[in-house]
């Protein structure tokens, strides 16, 4: 049993802290001159004044600070150790970027300030856009989408608009069975019907199946390459030809770019539109679920469809260009998730071309090194042609453990936690049963990769000897296995403290 253990504070809810009368923030005192000259009753509509104060806790600054400090220290991030969540590219977030973005000359900029006030920042964004276009092999990028999924929606809407502008009525979006859930969801949001494509046993797209479904309803295809199995789609050029051949467009989900940075470019593979996840590939932190940034890049005439504004340079000055003749419109208010964008700028600036390529090579090296360590570990299958090198990630199946000892992918995950390691992404992609999707990224140490493989081996050995023990994990985390059934039960489901309070008071129904 690992000696690691997580801290445990049994931290009360913020509502259970504090006392009446306490505050954690001093509102500046209103000046006498103002107090004497304006009265609240004249300022606000009387019958819209709040009848009862919001039921917020009353907590002092020190209590707030301690509370959230304790919570932060009971949350495992990349700063604590490996987080090899496949598809998530959880790499080290360089501190230089974290430091530089605290600058008030960034944080205090109002989004509607004139271009002349933000020349330095626009230059950063302009250069970033150029670099992203170069990295993807595209012509221009919109930096506005706040995340990958938003980028996908942009792409899907661009494809929709593209066909509409050509007077074509195409409502089918082709998406492989191993695609990330955001792909079909985004296509659906853009009004497309989703046509599912199959994966062949080498882990490539099944070309025959593709050929069978393309046609004049085909608006496009959404692909990620390397795919979610970590395999490079070998027939990408054929796929491009087939889809282009029927008049469809190719959309590239850039979440898996890390392993091929500087080696192959989506644009060169025939893609027309690409989104990038700066919070994956370009080292900006994930913040426990965001903020991210999901720029979208496009080629040729599709550039006109990108959401506005775009950043332009007239040789003297940078400016935001709002002209939108054929563009899909605005994808969000203002100018994008600027802070992550600047972090990504710092990331690329720091690494340069050689560094970015090294990132790719390291991430692929790490994946395949891990595979080599797992070679003689029983209990885990490597589906889809184990002889093919993986790129940024690899997907194992814990099916042998499930079949033989009733130990599931989830059990494996929970046992990894007990060793102070974050678990892989599990049960995705859907085409792999009991999937364990592992991505060490470029920033994981050889030693930790070895440790991870060793622990997986130990788990498999324990599965033979004492499988029920494995199902009790985790025990070293701040709580034991969490009850998800209760969490989702209509009688118990508790999304807020307000619900808990009202339920206790009998003032709320079963959901």
């Amino acid at each position, binding site marked *: 049993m690992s000696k690691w253990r997580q801290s445990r504070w049994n931290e009360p809810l913020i*509502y259970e802290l504090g006392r009446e009368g306490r505050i954690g923030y001093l509102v500046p005192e209103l000046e006498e001159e103002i107090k004497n000259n304006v009265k609240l009753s004249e300022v606000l509509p009387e019958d819209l004044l709040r009848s009862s104060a919001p039921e917020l806790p009353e907590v002092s600054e020190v209590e707030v600070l301690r509370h959230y400090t304790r919570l932060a220290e009971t949350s495992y991030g990349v700063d604590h150790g490996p987080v090899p969540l496949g598809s998530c590219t959880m790499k080290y977030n360089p501190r230089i970027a974290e430091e530089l973005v605290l600058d008030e000359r960034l944080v205090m900029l109002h989004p509607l300030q004139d271009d002349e006030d933000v020349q330095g920042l626009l230059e950063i964004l302009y250069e970033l856009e150029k670099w992203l276009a170069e990295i993807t092999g595209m012509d221009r990028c919109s930096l506005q989408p706040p995340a990958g999924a938003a980028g996908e929606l942009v792409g899907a809407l661009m494809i929709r608009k593209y066909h509409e502008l050509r007077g074509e009525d195409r409502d089918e979006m082709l998406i492989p069975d191993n695609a990330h859930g955001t792909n079909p969801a985004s296509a659906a949001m853009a009004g497309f019907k989703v046509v599912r494509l199959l994966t062949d046993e080498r882990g490539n797209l099944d070309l025959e199946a593709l050929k069978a479904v393309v046609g004049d309803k085909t608006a496009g295809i959404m692909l990620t390459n390397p795919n979610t199995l970590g395999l490079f789609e070998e027939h990408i050029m054929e796929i491009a030809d087939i889809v282009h051949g029927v008049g469809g467009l190719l959309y590239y989900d850039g979440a898996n770019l890390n392993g091929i940075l500087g080696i192959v470019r989506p644009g060169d593979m025939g893609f027309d539109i690409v989104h990038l996840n700066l919070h994956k590939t370009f080292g900006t932190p994930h913040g426990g679920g965001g903020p991210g940034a999901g720029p979208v890049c496009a080629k040729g005439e599709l550039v006109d469809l990108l959401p506005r504004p775009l950043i332009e340079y007239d040789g003297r000055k940078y400016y935001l260009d709002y002209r939108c003749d054929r563009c899909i419109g605005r994808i969000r208010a203002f100018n994008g998730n600027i802070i992550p964008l600047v972090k990504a700028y710092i990331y690329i600036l720091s690494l340069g071309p050689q560094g970015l390529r090294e990132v790719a090579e390291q991430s692929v090296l790490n994946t395949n090194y891990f595979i080599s360590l797992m070679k003689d570990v029983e209990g885990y299958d490597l589906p889809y042609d184990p002889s093919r090198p993986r790129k940024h990630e690899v997907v194992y199946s814990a099916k042998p453990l499930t079949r033989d000892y009733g130990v599931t992918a989830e059990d494996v995950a929970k046992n990894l936690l007990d060793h102070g390691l974050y678990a892989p992404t599990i049960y995705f992609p859907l085409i792999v049963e009991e999937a364990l999707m592992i991505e060490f990224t470029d920033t994981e140490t050889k030693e930790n990769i070895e440790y991870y493989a060793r622990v997986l081996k130990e788990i498999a050995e324990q599965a033979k000897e004492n499988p029920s023990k494995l199902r009790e994990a985790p025990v070293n985390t701040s709580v034991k296995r969490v009850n998800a059934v209760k969490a989702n039960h209509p009688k118990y489901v508790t999304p807020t403290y307000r619900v808990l309070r009202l339920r206790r008071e009998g003032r709320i129904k079963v959901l």
Partner: protein
Amino acid sequence: MTVHPWLPNSPENIKKEMLEKIGVGSVDELYRDIPRSVILGRELKVGLGRPLSEVEVKRIVQEKLSRNRIYVNPPPFMGGGVCYHHVPSTVKWIITRGGFLTAYTPYQAEIAQGLLQALFEYQSLIADLVELEVVNASMYDGSTAVAEAFLMASRVTRKNKILVPSTMNPQHLEVARTWTYGKKITIEKVGFNEKTGFMDLADLEDKLRDRKTAAVYVEYPSYLGFIDENIKKIGELAHSYDSLFIIGFEPISLGILEPPGKLGADIAIAEGQPLGLGLNYGGPYLGVFAVRWDRKLVRQMPGRLIGLTEDSEGNRAFTMILQTREQHIRREHATSNITTNEALMAIAAAVYLSLLGRKGIRSLAEHIALKAAYTASKLSEIPGVRAPALSSKHFKEFTVSFSIGYRDLYRYLKSKGILGGYYVGDKYPWLGECALFCVTEAHSLSDIKLLVDTIKEYIEKKVDKP
């Protein structure tokens, strides 16, 4: 490539060991399945063409930042959907702790309880602020929250018309149009009163009568700063025609204004930036999204939800709930495609609301309302200036209309170190030369005096020698 500090396995000796174990001679072999024809075969043209040290990067970035201009003394008076608020130091401190900053979405609940609890508390604090029971763990920003609310309303009601105020935040409207474009939702503006800005109730009812309206949307306060005093009636009208009622609120104002839950809202959304976030030139911000305790609504909600539960020993624990709405499970049938959201900003808002508490949020709201009203009244004393330009009541943003051209005045203010209001005369022509000003707790009385005096001085000069 030399060894890099961010790439622990980049030293040649380590690479060699790894390649040997893998059984290949070089990393290139691991790329053997990539068709040669698509291999780039040259260096990317990015950065300065080589890896740079921290020393160099810092110099470059800081040089660029030095070419931005910020307004500190006084802080920006510019409104337009977002205003400058003070960000408490404690908020910044918390969101730069590694456990929050560098964590992923809490897929593994047991090792991420702190993160889950913080997000649950965010949901809870917002729920109590708006008096609606269910709040998701965040949308991208206020504008996409509006868009998702429209999409959700359409799913819930199976209708596809949305009625919005004519004065609606134009950027939000644009965004909503983009997001709903694929779903063929039409967004229609309701008539309004040019003096007060209020929605025209008769026109609203006219437009509702076909019963094709999925939802009526109201801003509270509105983009132009006024508070539509008919808000309750609007909600009642909406409901009487089986439409949902959506309120887009300003979070701090709820310290003093009746919450959406009390006004009949089915869905309430907001731009959460005032809750402890920087201006950031537009992002990251925070999309707040809340709905009533109603199965039909909750099932159709977009975004992530954290819930309270127990661990196997009965200890309190948290985990993600109702995931069957989400893309990773429901794929094309999901309620939204969102996954990465603005979690860290939600935590910032939780810390902010915790610091303020029930008393703090009220006194902050009062403070702002009074200060803004005071500023408006002082501006109105200047001949040729009307503030607010509308006769209704306002919270922190307000319109100011001028008898002279605003753009020159704006430039003059800048020359004096003041960032004036955001020009909206082009978008709301009946308001004439008009701009959106904003006053918050960050402005002192002397900041306000400076603004007023500078405008006065300029206008007097103008009038003297036109």
